[in-house]
């Protein structure tokens, strides 16, 4: 796993710089060069190099030790190797005291450099894996984990940062796959409730009665099979945050129950007569236009106003295409570790395919596309060929032409299959796009034997 780590070689002698860089490139690393300490600092500000080779003696006011100290301040996690042709005990001690990881005398044995770099990379791979695993384990995302450089997203993150410290209810809206839960988690883990639980509930995934018992819990004997008391998600989130995903899908009865919790902070467990008081911050999310749902009588306006104290609207990925390269590179690095693949970048052609694609499934679809491409990729970088499946999707989405001779049934089958594919198999979303009931869609899926 070499290609993810970038190396900067800093030496005023061009031949020294280039020859070491070329040698490291043959070893599979991405290597840049700088001819002075000042240039190295500028480059370190722009790129997060993992390893720096810095020549000790450089003219122009900033020698190797000064460069080392400034890089250390800028990039404390980077490994810095001082190289010199004039080794003395004093300079070696100074370099090590200032945080150099190694001190090597040139010319050095090829084996020495090779072992040194592979040892550092091994440790860095383990450190990165550890960070990823920890984050996965706790899912304690913070705002700095939200990857974006779009001005619109930065404004959203600023707003979310402000509301993190408030107790107010937040409504996060946006298309499926835009990262609503990630923002909710960041709000929770950046606020005063961070040490308390964050409990996520997908309201769309459960039937009404099941969701009711999930949210509010039940008493022993409340229904057949309730052989002991169970605490609901609201109680589990006491002191912390409850995240109600797909709130637009809850039934009218649950809307009333939820309104009561939001108003009084109290509820009854199913089958219970004792009032339960909770202090849980509510963050709700939906991809549904709740204003329209209110107009259609499907959603209570009083609940909407209770939820919509602060609204955070996340734009779809197609409206912030500048984030595509950044997110794509992030996923490449993550999947390289997860899949054990030595793939570090996306070629110019590959990036063009990603930029041109419309991303109806948003960040989640991009994540899936990168994973799929990495599974089949044979090189060190993802190329346009690895994303050929996206071009097919895009062409299908743009130009839906019906071949002459196709029956209405065949056309319907194709339309349903295509819509399901674009919603990643989500029947509810597909039914919405097709303008039919979910039950009708299920019936058609069954009749046409469409795989999901």
């Amino acid at each position, binding site marked *: 796993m070499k290609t993810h780590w970038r190396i900067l070689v800093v030496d005023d002698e061009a031949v020294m710089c280039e020859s070491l860089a070329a*040698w490291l490139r043959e070893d599979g690393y991405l290597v840049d060069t700088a001819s002075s300490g000042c240039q190295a600092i500028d480059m370190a500000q722009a790129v997060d190099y993992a390893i720096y080779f810095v020549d000790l003696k450089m003219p122009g006011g900033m020698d190797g030790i000064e460069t080392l100290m400034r890089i250390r301040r800028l990039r404390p996690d980077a490994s810095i190797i001082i190289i010199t042709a004039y080794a003395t005990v004093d300079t070696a001690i100074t370099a090590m005291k200032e945080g150099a990881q190694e001190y090597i005398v040139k010319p050095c044995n090829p084996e020495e450099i090779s072992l040194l770099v592979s040892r550092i990379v091994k440790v860095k791979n383990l450190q990165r894996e550890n960070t990823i695993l920890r984050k996965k384990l706790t899912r304690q995302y913070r705002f700095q984990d939200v990857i974006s450089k779009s001005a619109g997203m930065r404004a959203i993150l600023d707003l979310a940062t402000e509301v993190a410290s408030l107790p107010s209810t937040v409504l996060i809206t946006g298309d499926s796959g835009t990262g609503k839960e990630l923002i909710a988690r960041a709000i929770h883990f950046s606020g005063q409730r961070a040490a308390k639980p964050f409990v996520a509930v997908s309201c769309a995934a459960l039937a009404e009665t099941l969701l009711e018992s999930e949210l509010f819990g039940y008493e022993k004997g409340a229904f057949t099979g309730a052989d002991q008391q169970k605490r609901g998600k609201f109680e589990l989130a006491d002191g912390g945050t409850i995240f109600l995903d797909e709130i637009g899908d809850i039934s009218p009865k649950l809307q009333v129950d939820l309104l009561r919790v939001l108003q009084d902070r109290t509820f009854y467990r199913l089958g219970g007569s004792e009032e339960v008081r909770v202090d849980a911050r509510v963050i709700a999310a939906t991809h549904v236009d709740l204003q329209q749902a209110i107009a259609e009588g499907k959603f209570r306006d009083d609940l909407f106003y209770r939820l919509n104290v602060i609204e955070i609207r996340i734009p779809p990925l197609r409206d912030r295409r500048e984030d595509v390269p950044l997110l794509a590179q992030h996923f490449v690095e993550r999947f390289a570790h997860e899949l054990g693949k030595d793939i570090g970048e996306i070629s110019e052609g590959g990036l063009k395919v990603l930029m041109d694609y419309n991303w109806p499934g948003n960040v989640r679809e991009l994540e899936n596309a990168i994973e799929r491409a990495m599974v089949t990729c044979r090189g060190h970088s993802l190329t346009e060929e690895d994303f050929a499946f996206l071009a097919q999707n895009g062409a299908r989405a743009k130009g839906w032409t019906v071949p002459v001779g196709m029956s209405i049934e065949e056309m319907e089958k194709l339309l349903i299959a295509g819509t399901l594919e674009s919603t990643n198999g989500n029947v509810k979303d597909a039914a919405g796009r097709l303008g039919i009931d979910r039950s009708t869609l299920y019936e058609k899926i069954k009749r046409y034997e469409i795989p999901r």
Partner: protein
Amino acid sequence: MSYLYVGATAETDRDALTAIGAFFSVQFALPVRKIDLPSVDFAFDARRHQYGSIPALEMVYRLCPGDAVKLLAVTERDLFIPVLTFVFGHAQLGGRAALISLARLRQEFYGLQPDLPVLLERACKEALHETGHTFGLVHCSDIGCAMALSTRVQQIDHKRAAFCPVCSRRLPAGVTI
């Protein structure tokens, strides 16, 4: 028609060139041609008593025939790059020119009896390795693959004179047999 060229510098034993030429003919799908190259003695560094690999490789690149896909040069001289004590060979990553040195592939460099078959086998492996770099291959983590990094002659002896399946797949289509 494009060719894969193998060339020997003026001071170099022709046995190695013949062996590499024959080896490349069965490894690569491209037709192989041999070429005579001038000496690399101009790249001698009196301080190090070695020959600069960078100027030598630049010379090889300049002498690439117009119909050459790649040119692999063989020299007897002990090569170095400024930051390292020596190199077995040097190549333009993804370029056209590559160069190997026989100096440290000979048993006599290590105080042993000369052994021509061992020398030729090592030369073929190094030639394949450096030519692999010109096709864009980087070092391979399979220590038995010709593209594995070798910093000691024992590591060259351990390698096979062939690319592993992963490196083979990374080569452009139609390059190998």
